[in-house]
Structure formats: structure tokens, C-alpha cells
């Protein structure tokens, strides 16, 4: 997670996204979002359900077009970055292909890049090692547990060594133990490959544990309320979860999520009034 000298991996300028514009089903998903992510940074997006986190991620991935504003990825337009396969993507569901073996699943993005067979195979085996699934390459996805499938999906997202990784609640379906294990693995892998990560999550501890910065978003229409720096250093491990700084950051994020400081004061005032 050593941030390379101030090269922007993602730049989001004054971006808004409105779905079904000018129809009665119009949804204002995102409003005037500005965000710059440095190369090598790990940034989490957190906010109430429906606030536009997935939408923002899809905009960065150029799977959606912004209604207003512009987005640059790796100093290119988002569209060009997608065509160049500058990012890998992972979702809440592993989304593996049932008819392909685990190894062939990992090879898919490489196939589409036009790599030859030997090179693909070598890389897939390397990736299987990275997610500690060496022995499972020839199995089919449904023969693996949910956590293992998710690791395959991450291996697939990282297979082409993209400089940027976009993840939408990738650990949402996992149990707590597997989840913490996967968080550790993700940090290790990203450090080894110096990958920039944009990570959507609903879990405050997860966001804090993983991130250099946590972006807190408002309810719909999604705006950025606050960007919180997490100063837990670059070497994080199980002790980090017990550190004072960890809990302090969690509290900061939680308060930012609860709303503005003013609301917090108002809530206290009401409680005070009830006590009387």
C-alpha cells in the first residue's frame, strides 16, 4: 500500500447520475460527486443502502455513463480505461462460470486480452497460489465453498495484474471468520501487487481495517459527506483490530454516517430534555 508519488488512479469530477431521466421513474442516484484516488491507495465507499455506492463504482468501471461530470481512470477517459482493461472487478456474488473449471474462470479475462494458452495457464496457476487454492484449479466452481468461490473471483479480477481493483461488497456473503481472513488476504495481495482498490462495503470495521481513506456518503441522492483518513499504518494484522486507533476511526466513521455533527448535538439535547 505504498502510495506511489501522487499519480491519480481515479478522478471523479462533479459527477451526477440520474436514472430514467424525465420519466416518472426518475431516480437521482448521485449528486455532484468529486473524488480523487491516488495510485496505490485503498479507498472504501460506505453509506446507507441505495445511496449510490454501486452506481459510483459502475461509473468508474464505465459500465454506466454519468449524466453530468466526467471520470478519468489512469489518466484516460473511463471508456478508454475499460477498453484497455485497466481494472479488475469483483462483486458480492462470485459470478463464476459454472461450465468452466476454476482455472479456466481465472483465465477468462486473459483470453479476452488475447494471451496465448501457455501464458494464460502459467498466470492462472500463479493466481491460484496467491489466493491459496493451488489444488482446486481443475474443480468446478460449485464444488467449492462460498468463501473459496469468492477467492477465485478475486483471483480472476487480479489475473491480468490490473493497476486498479473495483470491489462491490465482495465479502458481504461470507461468515465473520472467513471475512476477516479474506480481508487479511486482500491486503496482502494488494500490497504484493501494489494495486489501487475502490471497495464498497456496509461494514464500518471492514472499511476502517482495509482503507487508507473511508468515503462516507449521504442517503439518496448520494453525495460525499466526508472523507475520513485512517491512520493505522501500512502493516495491518490481527492486532490492528484491537488497537485504539482502530476504534477511534470506527467511531469517527459511525458519527459521519449518523449524519452531521449538528444532528448529533440535537439528539443529545432531546435526550437531555427527556431526562428532566
Amino acid at each position, binding site marked *: 500500500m505504498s502510495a506511489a508519488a501522487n499519480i491519480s488512479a481515479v478522478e471523479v469530477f462533479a459527477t451526477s447520475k440520474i436514472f430514467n431521466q424525465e420519466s416518472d421513474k426518475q431516480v437521482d442516484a448521485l449528486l455532484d460527486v468529486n473524488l480523487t484516488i491516488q495510485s496505490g491507495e485503498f479507498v472504501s465507499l460506505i453509506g446507507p443502502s441505495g445511496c449510490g455506492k454501486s452506481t459510483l463504482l459502475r461509473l468508474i*468501471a464505465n*459500465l454506466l455513463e454519468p449524466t453530468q461530470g466526467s471520470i478519468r481512470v489512469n489518466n484516460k477517459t473511463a471508456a478508454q480505461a*475499460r*477498453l*484497455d*482493461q485497466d*481494472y*479488475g*472487478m469483483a*462483486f458480492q*456474488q462470485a*459470478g463464476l*462460470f*459454472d*461450465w*468452466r*473449471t476454476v482455472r479456466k474462470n481465472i483465465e*477468462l*479475462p486473459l*483470453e*479476452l*486480452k488475447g494471451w496465448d494458452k501457455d501464458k494464460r495457464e502459467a498466470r492462472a496457476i500463479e493466481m491460484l497460489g496467491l489466493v491459496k487454492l493451488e489444488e482446486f484449479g481443475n474443480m*468446478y466452481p*460449485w464444488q467449492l465453498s462460498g468463501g473459496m468461490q469468492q477467492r477465485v473471483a478475486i483471483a480472476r479480477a487480479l489475473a491480468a495484474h490490473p493497476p486498479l481493483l473495483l470491489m462491490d461488497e465482495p465479502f458481504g456473503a461470507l461468515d465473520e471468520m472467513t471475512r476477516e481472513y479474506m480481508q487479511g488476504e486482500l491486503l496482502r495481495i494488494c500490497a504484493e501487487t501494489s494495486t489501487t482498490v475502490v471497495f464498497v462495503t456496509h461494514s464500518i470495521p471492514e472499511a476502517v481495517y482495509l482503507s487508507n481513506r473511508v468515503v462516507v456518503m449521504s442517503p439518496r441522492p448520494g453525495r460525499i459527506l466526508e472523507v475520513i483518513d485512517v491512520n493505522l499504518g501500512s502493516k495491518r494484522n490481527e492486532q490492528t483490530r484491537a488497537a485504539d486507533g482502530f476504534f477511534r476511526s470506527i467511531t469517527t466513521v459511525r458519527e459521519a454516517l449518523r449524519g452531521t455533527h449538528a444532528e448529533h448535538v440535537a439528539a443529545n439535547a432531546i435526550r437531555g430534555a427527556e431526562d428532566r
Partner: protein
Amino acid sequence: MTILSRAKNIAAPLIFGVVFLALWESVVVGFDLKPYFLAAPSKIVEQFFKNTTRIWEATVVSGTNALVGLIVGTILGIAMSFVLSRFRFLSQLVTPLAISLNAIPIFVLVAVLNNMYSITSEIPRRFMVTLVVYFIVLVNVARGLTQVRSIHVELMRSYAASDLAILRKVRVPNAIPYLFTALKVAAPASVITAFVSEYFGGSQNGLGSRITSNIANSKNAAAWAYVLGACLLGLAFYTVSIILESLTRRGQSK
């Protein structure tokens, strides 16, 4: 599946069949039913083995009609499903048509077709089988090509995949189980259509026509012997479609 449960799966219908035949036989013998009313299974089997060559010849005629129609209908159905999945608006036109055509017994069309071809031509019957198979395959395969998981399409787009690559790597593999489901339905349907088409004239050489002519001559047991041949033919088609499916499904789930 364990050997035990597999044995159970085979044994249960087998026992049922034996008991059923025994009951049938005892009813015919017990009530002394006349053969033109209901033939006893023992008489049917007797007739079957007495006429094996003729039943076999008739089976080959009907079976060939069914097979030709099955193959041509499958190929055309697959081809059209690709066209439909490419042009969605077409599929909105054709799918309801295909479903409603499937619901009515379109093989009556064979009567019309028989007038257009020479009396000995097998083309009208093969055409009917083709038509029935075509719609079954078309509807199912088109569904397989279009109903892909959106996460898969999104992933492919994130890899900057072309429409052709999405077709080859997502839609086609997704449609393969749908194709075999269609074949499992279409294989017996092709046999049934081949028989029923024979009821509407044309040359009298297939299983269907033999059944009618034997009934007309009050040779009930012989008619049932041909029905037995028909059952075996239908079973053979179904079995082959299941074997094909299991071969392609080896590594896969569900």
C-alpha cells in the same frame, strides 16, 4: 447416486409394470374378454414375436421420419434462436407465435400437405416432425441464449468483450443445457408426430398406419404388437437424448 438407490429407481417401475401386466392378463382371462375387445398381454407378445420383421420394417419407416425431422428441426431451431437472440424485437413477435402453435395440434396440417405431394411421399410427415421439433428447440434455446446472468454480461463488458465474444463465451455455453432439455421433450414428440401424421393418409408403411389397419381388421392383438413397437421406438429416442445430455453434462452441476 449409489448403486442401491439406482437399483431402487429401476426396480420400482419394473415391479409396477409386472404387476400391471399380470392384472391386465388376469382381467382378460378371468372375464373371458374377446380379443377384439381387449387383447391379453401374452397374445400381444406372441403377435410381436410372430411379426418382428414387419414391425421392424414399419419401425424403420416411422423412425426415419422422426429422426430426419428431429435433426432438421433441431438445426433450424438452433439457427433461428441465434437470429432471435440477436434481434430482440423479432423474438417478441415469434415467441408467442411459437408457443401458441405448440399448443394446437398442428400435425393436422399434414392432411393439407399430403395433397401437395405424391401419395407415397414421406416429405409431408417429415415436414410435420420438423415443425414440431423446430418450435420446441427454438423457444428453449432462445431462452438459454438470452437469459444469462446479468453479472456475467457485466463482467464481460468490464473485460471489453465484443458482442461476439459474449455470445461465444457466455450465451452459447448457457444455452447448452436448454438445448438438451428441448431435445428431451422433442425426441418423444418427434416419434409421436411421425405416428400421428400417418393417420392422415399417405403410404401405409409406418407404425401408425399399421396400427390403424390392424384395428380396422379387428386384429386387436396385432395392433397392440405394433403399439409395443411404437413404445420401444419412443423409448429409444428418449434414451438417446438422455445419454447425449449426460455426456455433455459430465463436469457440471444440478
